[in-house]
């Protein structure tokens, strides 16, 4: 079984490529789902904000860690960013994607933190180039605490093992969704099956991964 990092791209090319991040796709189902959750928070459903936090916690912590150059404070600052976002959610009108809006709050929070320590912040553009991004992430791995790095590697290993143990149709569906960022409709077309079958396969794949992760994280 090929490791996930070398999973062949769906377009038939042989060049390695970045996984497509569905949150960045304009008009995507995720973007619409986020907007729906935001509207619920604005109507007073606090639980909807918890789901937004669960969805974006890793992205925000990762982003803040890059800006601060110090992963040990990343969670504190990321937490502050989420609290600010919750407080400001009443003014979010959906002109941009929720993640873009959250991303700006996280960037500003990290910059304020750096400024308050009188340290020069990393001059961060909206999108680092691929080489800069991988260089930053490589550097960050070296300054991770040993425990955090070990857990991160163990999570990745566990997820990989769980994926490898899946039946082929479940494995294909979850890879097309999570790595390639295809919609259910696109996956249904690629796998020549109904959308409902795609939904079921992705769910069963996630359940299998969850069963593997649960003992590790509990």
């Amino acid at each position, binding site marked *: 079984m090929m490791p996930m990092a070398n999973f062949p791209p769906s377009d038939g090319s042989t060049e390695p490529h970045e996984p497509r991040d569905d949150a960045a796709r304009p008009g995507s189902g995720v973007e619409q789902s986020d907007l729906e959750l935001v509207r619920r928070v604005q109507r007073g459903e606090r639980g909807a904000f918890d789901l937004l936090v*669960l969805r974006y916690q890793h992205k925000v912590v990762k982003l803040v860690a890059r800006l601060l150059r110090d992963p040990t404070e990343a*969670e504190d600052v990321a937490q502050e960013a989420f609290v600010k976002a919750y407080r400001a959610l009443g003014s979010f009108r959906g002109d941009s994607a929720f993640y873009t809006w959250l991303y700006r709050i996280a960037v500003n929070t990290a910059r304020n933190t750096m400024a308050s320590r009188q340290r020069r912040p990393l001059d961060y553009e909206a999108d680092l180039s691929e080489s800069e991004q991988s260089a930053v992430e490589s550097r960050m791995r070296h300054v991770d605490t040993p425990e955090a790095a070990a857990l991160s590697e163990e999570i990745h290993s566990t997820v990989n093992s769980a994926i490898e143990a899946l039946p082929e149709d479940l494995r294909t569906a979850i890879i097309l969704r999570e790595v390639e960022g295809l919609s259910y409709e696109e996956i249904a077309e690629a796998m020549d099956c109904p959308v409902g079958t795609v939904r079921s396969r*992705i769910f069963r794949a996630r359940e299998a991964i969850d069963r593997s992760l649960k003992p590790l994280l509990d």
Partner: protein
Amino acid sequence: MTDQIREQMSALLDGELPRGEVDLLVRRMARDAELKRAFGNYVLAGESLRAPGGVMAGKGFAARVSAAIDAEESASPVAEQPAPSSAPSRWRRPLAATAVAASAALAAVLLVRPDSGDSQQFAERSGAPATVPVVTLPVGGASPTPAQNQRLAGYLVTHGQYATPIGRRAAWSNALATDPGIARVTYEPAEAR
């Protein structure tokens, strides 16, 4: 039934859940820790597939965010959930009214209250150093004017916005620097109890 709910959760994560099913699911998830745990693992699996290794949010991060928001809302008794654009004035008006009606002693209680048990509990939950900040006020002097009470209420809002030790110090420094009329309020971290 549980499988059906979890399948809906998986579809919600992908933005593929029909809108009519979102409402009930979100309500269910809000009161079910196991569903939220599973949702978090669904997210983690995707993140791990897309970007193996590197920094990620630690266990309990989402719960700490929730606790921080709870602490902030309980510290500001009339603070409400986010509402369209008028939220800031909705916060300040009742807070200002409360401060105007209160005595100087009550204003001191409002200033001290965010730094007592709530922050202790929050610090414990978040793993931050367990400090109990103490606010001292000058002895004597006249009762605060309505304008001063309104400024105090504004500082309370600003103070409540920051749940970390770093943020609290920055908020207080800025507040004291910008309003010399309240310059005599001091803020000192105390030893943990």
